[in-house]
């Protein structure tokens, strides 16, 4: 599964993109965030406040219960500020 990070999430985690292989028990967005948060201090800092973390699964906004699977492109980013 490919994970993309944008804006300050990218800065805190220290990478723009990575391939991860979470255990089979990780089947939802919420579970994925829990698993990522445990990967290190940068992840923990980036994901501490879930209120300001938006998630897209295959380029569509997704809530915490949205399913994730191998081969998905997941993106984590703060609330958008375009326009």
């Amino acid at each position, binding site marked *: 599964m490919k994970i*993309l990070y944008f804006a300050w999430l990218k800065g805190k985690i220290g990478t723009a993109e990575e391939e991860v292989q979470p255990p089979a028990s990780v089947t939802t967005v919420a579970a994925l965030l829990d698993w990522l948060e445990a990967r290190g201090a940068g992840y923990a800092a980036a994901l501490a406040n879930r209120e300001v973390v938006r998630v897209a699964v295959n*380029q569509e*906004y997704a809530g915490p219960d949205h399913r994730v699977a191998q081969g998905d492109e997941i993106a984590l980013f703060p609330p958008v500020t375009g326009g």
Partner: protein
Amino acid sequence: MIRVQAEDFDIGAEFARLTADNRNIGGLASFVGLVRDMAPSRTGNAPIGAMTLEHYPGMTEKKLAEIEAEANRRWPLEASLIIHRYGRLEPGDRIVLVATASAHRQAALESCQFLIDWLKTKAPFWKLEETPSGGQWVDARDSDDAAAKRWAAES
């Protein structure tokens, strides 16, 4: 039509293209967003040297195309255009152009407002401002969410 690009755009040329050969356009509404040299910060207004717009290539184009299609479903538009820039921009630079054309002015004006409200809250762009105290990611504003929500009830 939607475009996501680093380069600037020529508003006069874009408008001319948008209305060319269509004699059923009675009104063309547009909004241009520009980089200001001051921005609200936690400690009052702070001078901005420049900003860098990051985006999510792929998802950006997808979301802009979706919302343009939605505007065309809600209003009888003759033409529509969204251009959003990314990369480093300086004060006075254009960031975004939204333009909508219709036989009647109200459809053009409303759909233009709808598109800009929507892309403020849904298009995956993030602004990093260069301030005297370093780079600072711009926070999303509650007022932008409220503006976008006005349109949800009608969908």
